[in-house]
C-alpha cells in the first residue's frame, strides 16, 4: 500500500537550507549561528524521518510512502522522475543517516571549534547529508546515482578539507579518482539494465519497474551470460569503489587525513555503506544472478580477512579503524552475497553505531592529545579521559561481537547466513576474521588507555576530557551500540528476529541451503573472538615486551603487513605511473603542446609574418600614395569606357 507523503521533501529541504545558509552567510554569521544551523537542520531532518519511520511501522507490511517531486527526464520512451520512496529498507537507512549524522554534526561543533573554516566545514557536511539522503530516498537508479556522485564529491571535499597540505590534497584526489573507476562500473551496469529492460518494452530505471521485470532481465542473454549477472557484476564494481572492497579499497586508509568526524560519518557510518544499500535495494535482481552473488560474497570475505591482517600491526589509531571499517564492510558484502540482505543491513546499522562511536572516541583522544595519532605515544589515558574510555570500551565490545552488545547479534547473523548458504570456506574466513578483529580492537584499547603513559610531557599537561558537545554524542552512540542489536535476536528468543521480519517485504526472506545449528555456529565464532581478546591482553598488558619480540622475530611478515601488503606500491607501479606517463608525454606534450598550441601559435605567426611583409606599403611618401591612387583612377575610367563601348 503506497501513501503519498509530500513531507518527505522536508528531509531533503532541511539539509539543503543548511548548505545555503552556511555557504552564503555562514562566514559572516559567525560560529554561533553556524553551530546552531549545521546540526540543527540535521535534527530537523531526523524529526521528519522519525515521523516517516513511524508511519511505516504502523502500516501493513509492504507499505511505502512516496512522493514525486518533478518529472525529470523524458527522452523518447525513456522516463525518469525525481521521486522519493520510503519503505522499510529506506526508512531504516534514513533514520541511520539523519540520526547518526545529527549526532556527528553536534560532535563537530566541539571538535572543529578552533578551526578557521568552520562555516565551510558545515557547508560540506550538510551537502554530504543532502547527497546521502538523496541516495537512500531515491525511487530510481538515476536519482540514486546523483546521490552516489554527490557523496563522492563531498568525500573529496572533506578529505582534502585542509587542502593547503599537499599530501591531504593528494589523498582527496586519490579517493575521488579511485571511486570514479567504480562509478564507471555503476554507469555501465545502469546501461545494461536499460538495454535489458528495453528489450521487453519497459523504458525506465524505477526500482518498482526493475522488480516487476526482474525475471525478464535474467532471461536476457548478454556476453555469454544473463544480463542480470553482467549488470550485477558491473554494479558491484561500483560498490567496491564506494564501499572500499578489493580491489578499489586503497583510498579509504588515506582518507583518514580528513577531520575525524568526517571519518566517522562518511567513512564509517554512511557513505561507505552505500554499496551495501544498493545491492540490498536490487536484491530481486541479484538473487536471479547467483554467479554475481558468489563473487560478491567471496570478495567480501577476502576483503574482511585481508584488511584485518593489516590492522594487526598499524601504529596509527585512525588507520586501525580504517582497516577495521574495510573489514566490517567485507562482512556486510559477505552477508548480501549469501542472499541474506537483512543480515547485511542489520550489520550496517550496528556498524554505524559502534564504528561511528569508535571514530568519535578516537577523535576525542586526538583532540585531548592535540593532534597525536600514534598509539605508541599514548597510554594510561583511562583515568584522564573517563567518558571517552568507557564509551570506547562499549564500542570495542560491540565490534568484537561480545554478547549482549549489538555487534554480537549482527555478526552472528552474517556468519550463520554464510554457513547456511553453503559457503563453508567463506564462513571459515569470517570466523578467523572475527578473531583477528577482537585482537586488534583490544590491542587498540590497551595501547591507548592502559599500561604506562608514553605521552609527550607537554601534551600530558594539557590533557582534558572533551566538552559536552563532543561527550553527548559519545554517550548516545554508546547507548545505541549496546541496545541496537536487540531488534534482531536469534530465532526463538523473545520476539525473535524482528528486524528481518520488518525488512522482509522489501528484501525478501533468507532461504537456507544447508541447515546449520545456530547455537554451535555462534559458539565457534564467539570463542574465537574471546581467544582474540585474551591474546591481546597477554600481549599488551601482561607481557608488554612480547609484541616487540614477535615483530623482530617475524620481521618479514611484520613489514609485509605494516606496509599493507605493498598493494599501494603495486598500484603505483602498474597503474598510476603508466597513466601519468601517457598523460604527460602523449596527451600533454604530443597533442596539447605540439598539435593544438602549434596550430594556434602557427595561425598567429602567419598573421605576423604577413603583416611584416605587407606593412612596407606604408612608405610615408605621399607620391607613392598618389601613384597608387592614379592606378585606381585608371581602372575606374577603363570601366566606364567599357560601359560606354557596350
Amino acid at each position: 500500500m503506497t501513501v503519498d507523503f509530500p513531507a518527505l521533501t522536508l528531509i531533503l529541504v532541511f539539509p539543503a537550507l543548511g548548505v545555503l545558509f552556511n555557504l552564503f552567510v555562514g562566514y559572516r554569521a559567525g560560529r554561533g549561528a553556524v553551530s546552531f544551523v549545521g546540526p540543527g537542520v540535521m535534527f530537523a531532518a531526523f524529526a521528519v524521518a522519525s515521523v516517516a519511520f513511524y508511519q511505516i511501522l504502523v502500516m501493513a507490511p509492504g507499505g511505502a510512502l512516496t512522493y514525486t517531486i518533478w518529472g525529470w527526464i523524458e527522452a523518447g520512451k525513456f522516463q525518469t522522475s525525481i521521486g522519493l520512496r520510503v519503505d522499510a529498507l529506506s526508512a531504516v537507512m534514513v533514520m541511520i543517516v539523519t540520526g547518526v549524522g545529527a549526532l556527528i554534526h553536534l560532535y563537530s561543533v566541539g571538535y572543529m571549534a578552533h578551526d578557521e573554516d568552520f562555516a565551510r566545514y558545515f557547508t560540506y557536511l550538510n551537502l554530504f547529508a543532502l547527497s546521502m539522503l538523496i541516495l537512500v530516498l531515491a525511487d530510481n537508479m538515476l536519482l540514486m546515482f546523483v546521490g552516489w556522485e554527490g557523496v563522492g564529491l563531498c568525500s573529496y571535499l572533506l578529505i582534502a578539507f585542509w587542502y593547503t597540505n599537499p599530501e591531504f590534497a593528494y589523498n582527496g584526489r586519490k579517493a575521488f579518482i579511485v571511486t570514479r573507476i567504480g562509478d564507471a562500473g555503476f554507469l555501465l551496469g545502469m546501461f545494461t539494465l536499460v538495454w535489458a529492460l528495453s528489450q521487453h518494452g519497459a523504458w525506465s530505471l524505477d526500482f518498482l519497474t526493475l522488480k516487476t521485470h526482474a525475471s525478464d532481465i535474467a532471461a536476457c542473454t548478454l556476453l555469454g551470460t544473463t544480463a542480470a549477472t553482467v549488470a550485477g557484476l558491473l554494479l558491484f564494481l561500483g560498490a567496491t569503489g564506494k564501499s572500499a572492497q578489493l580491489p578499489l579499497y586503497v583510498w579509504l586508509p588515506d582518507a583518514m587525513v580528513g577531520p575525524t568526524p568526517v571519518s566517522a560519518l562518511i567513512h564509517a557510518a554512511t557513505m561507505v555503506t552505500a554499496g551495501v544499500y544498493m545491492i540490498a535495494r536490487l536484491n530481486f535482481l541479484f538473487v536471479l544472478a547467483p554467479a554475481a552473488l558468489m563473487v560478491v560474497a567471496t570478495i567480501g570475505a577476502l576483503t574482511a580477512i585481508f584488511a584485518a591482517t593489516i590492522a594487526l600491526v598499524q601504529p596509527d589509531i585512525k588507520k586501525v579503524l580504517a582497516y577495521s571499517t574495510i573489514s566490517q564492510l567485507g562482512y556486510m558484502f559477505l552477508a548480501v552475497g549469501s542472499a541474506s540482505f537483512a543480515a547485511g543491513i542489520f550489520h550496517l546499522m550496528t556498524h554505524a553505531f559502534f564504528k561511528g562511536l569508535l571514530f568519535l572516541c578516537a577523535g576525542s583522544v586526538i583532540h585531548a592529545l592535540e593532534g597525536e595519532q600514534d598509539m605508541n605515544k599514548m597510554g594510561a589515558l583511562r583515568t584522564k579521559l573517563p567518558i571517552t574510555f568507557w564509551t570506547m570500551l562499549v564500542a570495542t565490545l560491540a565490534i568484537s561481537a561480545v554478547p549482549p552488545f549489538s555487534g554480537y547479534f549482527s555478526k552472528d547473523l552474517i556468519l550463520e547466513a554464510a554457513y547456511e548458504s553453503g559457503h563453508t570456506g567463506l564462513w571459515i574466513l569470517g570466523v578467523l576474521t572475527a578473531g583477528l578483529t577482537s585482537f586488534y580492537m583490544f590491542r587498540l584499547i590497551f595501547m591507548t588507555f592502559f599500561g604506562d603513559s608514553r605521552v609527550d610531557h607537554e601534551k600530558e599537561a594539557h590533557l582534558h576530557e572533551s566538552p559536552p558537545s563532543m561527550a553527548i554524542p559519545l554517550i548516545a552512540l554508546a547507548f545505541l551500540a549496546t541496545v541496537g542489536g536487540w531488534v534482531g535476536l536469534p530465532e526463538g528468543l523473545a520476539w525473535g528476529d524482528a528486524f528481518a521480519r520488518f525488512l522482509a517485504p522489501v528484501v525478501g526472506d533468507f532461504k537456507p541451503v544447508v541447515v546449520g545449528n545456530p547455537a554451535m555456529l555462534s559458539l565457534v565464532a564467539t570463542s574465537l573472538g574471546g581467544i582474540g581478546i585474551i591474546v591481546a591482553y597477554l600481549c599488551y598488558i601482561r607481557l608488554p615486551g612480547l609484541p616487540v619480540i614477535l615483530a623482530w622475530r617475524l620481521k618479514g611478515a611484520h613489514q609485509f603487513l605494516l606496509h599493507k601488503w605493498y598493494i599501494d606500491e603495486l598500484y603505483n607501479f602498474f597503474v598510476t605511473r603508466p597513466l601519468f606517463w601517457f598523460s604527460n608525454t602523449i596527451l600533454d606534450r604530443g597533442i596539447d603542446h605540439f598539435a593544438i598550441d602549434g596550430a594556434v601559435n602557427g595561425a598567429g605567426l602567419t598573421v605576423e609574418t604577413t603583416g611584416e611583409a605587407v606593412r612596407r606599403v606604408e612608405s610615408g611618401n605621399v607620391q607613392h600614395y598618389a601613384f597608387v591612387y592614379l592606378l585606381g583612377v585608371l581602372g575606374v575610367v577603363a570601366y566606364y569606357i567599357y560601359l560606354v563601348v557596350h
Partner: protein
Amino acid sequence: MTFIPLTWLLGLSAALFAIGVAGVIVRRNILVMFMSIELMLNAVNLAFIALAHRLGSMDGQVIVFFVMTVAAAEAAVGLGIIISIFRNRETVHADDLTLLRW
C-alpha cells in the same frame, strides 16, 4: 561664329589634368607639387566652362567661381603648412618628409 567641337575642349582639359597629375607624382619639390595641383584645378575649370557654354547654363560658371574661391583658401592654408614644415625641417624635398611610414 564657329564652334569649337566640345570634344576638343574636353580633350584639352584632360591633357592639362594629366600633366598636372604627372607633376604631382614626378616632382620632388613640394611647392612644385602644389602648383601642379593648381594646374589640375584649372583644367577642371575649363571643362566646366566649356560644358556651361554648350548647355547655355550659368551653373557651370557659378561652380567655377566657387572652385576658384576654394582654391584660394586651400592655397593659403597649404602654403602655411609648407612654411611650418620648412621651419621644422629645413627642407621641402618630399623624400625627407616620410613621417607616416612604418
